[in-house]
């Protein structure tokens, strides 16, 4: 047992390090990930320890990062790509959606694509355009990919290792405004606390289920604590896996509470919450006391950063959503 208080960013670093120590075929590729350690320093120190061939500073071309990762995977490597910011993933969209996702099926299962694509995502950091987006639904919509998001240091440490061990391609969304948040966990633990594609009920409650992933999980917990002072008991679920969707965990919670509020930063139109709402309605029609409520980003391009506070779901907007669910 070695309980330590570590940041989410450093937990990703230690997870990557463990994966690289365990399997010499694991290689990292991305822009500025070598000497600099990435713009968020997630790969800090790794090139020094593992060399330039395993921590590859790529030319500044995202399609190239993912496209060459496909070739490396075909050669038997397990590439971990870093896309510098969410809004920079689109030049690689074709490679991800048409090549990474479909290669295995194209070969009738003869080949695998064990590629991880790490993307720092979400807003709240005061950045200019393209640095604060939440593009996860595009990828969750694409069969052949798996999509996950971590929300806390312990999960960050383990989920990145599990994603690298997975024989399928995994889109790995990192909550960039939580990189510096600290959390305590046993850094000497030998096994992950749970599977990569499982949701986690992080707070039990009886009145409303609050579901989200990535950066909003912390806000949901704060909202639940605030609601408790007003006598509302909220169950909080960290979704963790966006594809496949751990629907059973969601459904059993909703069967208990009868109310569901889904939170994400992405625009709500055809966002993750829309699919979750549809599936929950199909499975829990008679148990629901209220329609599924979505608390998401507005259906606009991400706004200029001085206005982002009004765009992002915060404690008040989440509680407003809870109130709407309770008003039925």
């Amino acid at each position, binding site marked *: 047992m070695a309980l330590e208080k570590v940041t989410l960013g450093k937990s990703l670093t230690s997870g990557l390090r463990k994966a690289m120590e365990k399997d010499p075929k694991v290689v990292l590729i991305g822009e500025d990930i070598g000497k600099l350690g990435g713009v968020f320093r997630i790969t800090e120190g790794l090139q020094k320890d593992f060399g330039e061939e395993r921590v590859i500073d790529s030319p500044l071309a995202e399609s190239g990062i993912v496209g060459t990762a496909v070739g490396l995977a075909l050669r038997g490597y397990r590439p971990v790509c870093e896309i510098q910011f969410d809004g920079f993933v689109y030049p690689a969209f074709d490679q991800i959606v048409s090549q990474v996702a479909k290669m295995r099926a194209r070969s009738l299962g003869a080949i695998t694509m064990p590629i991880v694509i790490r993307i720092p995502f979400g807003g709240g950091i005061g950045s200019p355009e393209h640095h604060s987006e939440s593009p996860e639904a595009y990828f969750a919509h694409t069969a*052949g990919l798996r999509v996950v998001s971590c929300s806390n240091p312990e999960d960050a440490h383990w989920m990145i290792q599990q994603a690298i061990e997975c024989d399928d391609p995994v889109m790995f969304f990192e909550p960039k405004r939580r990189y510096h948040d600290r959390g305590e966990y046993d850094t000497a633990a030998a096994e992950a606390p749970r599977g990569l594609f499982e949701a986690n009920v992080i707070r039990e409650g009886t009145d409303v289920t609050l579901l989200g992933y990535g950066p909003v999980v912390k806000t949901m917990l704060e909202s639940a604590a605030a609601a408790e002072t007003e006598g509302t008991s909220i169950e909080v679920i960290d979704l963790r896996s966006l594809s496949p969707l751990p629907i059973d965990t969601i459904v059993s919670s909703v069967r208990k509470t009868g109310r569901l509020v889904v939170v994400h930063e992405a625009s709500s139109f055809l966002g993750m919450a829309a699919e979750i709402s549809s599936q929950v309605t199909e499975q829990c029609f008679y148990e629901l006391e209220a329609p599924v409520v979505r608390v998401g980003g507005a259906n606009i391009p991400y706004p200029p950063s001085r206005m982002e506070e009004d765009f992002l779901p915060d404690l008040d907007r989440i509680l407003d959503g809870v109130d709407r669910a309770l008003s039925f």
Partner: protein
Amino acid sequence: MSDKVVAELHEPTPAVGDGGPDMIQLLTPEGERLSHPDYDKYVADLTPDDLRSFYRDLVLIRRLDAEGYALQRQGELGLWPSLLGQEAAQVGSGRALKPHDMCFPTYREHGVGFVRGMDPQSSLQLFRGVSQGGWDPRDHNFHLYTIVIGAQTLHATGYAMGVKMDGNVGTGDPERDTAVICYFGDGASAQGDVNEAFVYAASFDAPVVFFCQNNQWAISEPVSKQTRIPLFQRARGFGFPGMRVDGNDVLATYAVTQHCLDEARNGNGPLLIEAFTYRMGAHTTADDPTKYRVSAEVEQWKFRDPIQRLKTYLSREGWADDVFFTGVDEEADSFAAELRQGCITMATPPGETMWDHIYAEEHPVMEAERAAFLAYQASFEEAK
């Protein structure tokens, strides 16, 4: 820049030319053997037997192509991308590869696949619509067809980076040193991925040979729409060698590709080959070239036919006679009959296999949807 230089830069590349003085040629359209100071050595050891087998490959893949075309017209294939006219570019380059070299095709390299030892039926699966590819690329070191134009150039580059990381470049051991060849066309040369592949390959000294079959047409657009300068000259801007070879000359293509593959295996990659050739047929069976190009152009290229020139050469040298040529034609007939039979008896997989192979690991949605599909199908049986 002087006015003259500017004027030259703005000179549009002719859609059809003779390839110009930079084009490497060992066998003229009239079947005469030209000597070349740099490339003769790569064909010096070829025996008459070897040359006859080149001829056989050219004829068989032309027949494969004709059969693909006919099968599409008869409704047995959904689409067929023809290689007619590009046989020498494909056989010459494909036969320069060693078994352990890796090859990344577009969707038109049926001829390269054939000389790599692929079952000719393999390339029909995709166009018949029974799979989206359907082979293991490792069986013949021949990757799956890639339809998104140019995307495979990055896969080839990444694979070549992996070859280098494995230490299989420049060891001097011919069984170990490995090259990667990547096919693409003149249209693809405009794609971002191809340009990114050039940058990555150069940046990592990747042992990859980019093999551009410039067949002069990207569906309806002439090569002048893709480039101002001859395509092989693009390589210079990326910092690696580029050369133009007569793509209708199987000997020159074989020689130049061998040279470039050797360079790549020795650690001097990447390299670019522009095989100057011509798409004699339509882009695919869905295309109608009479709408955008004149027949005189096609007629002109008939005189540069890749098979005829080798046939003339073999005859003139006395290395093959009518008995041989007739024998190859007869072999092509039975090859075509077998191909046709294989195609029309190729079974459509049962619907429930659609969910197979999407993921390597267990996936609840695949399993639930497959089960729901089977239950739905079964409900019709029960209703009977």
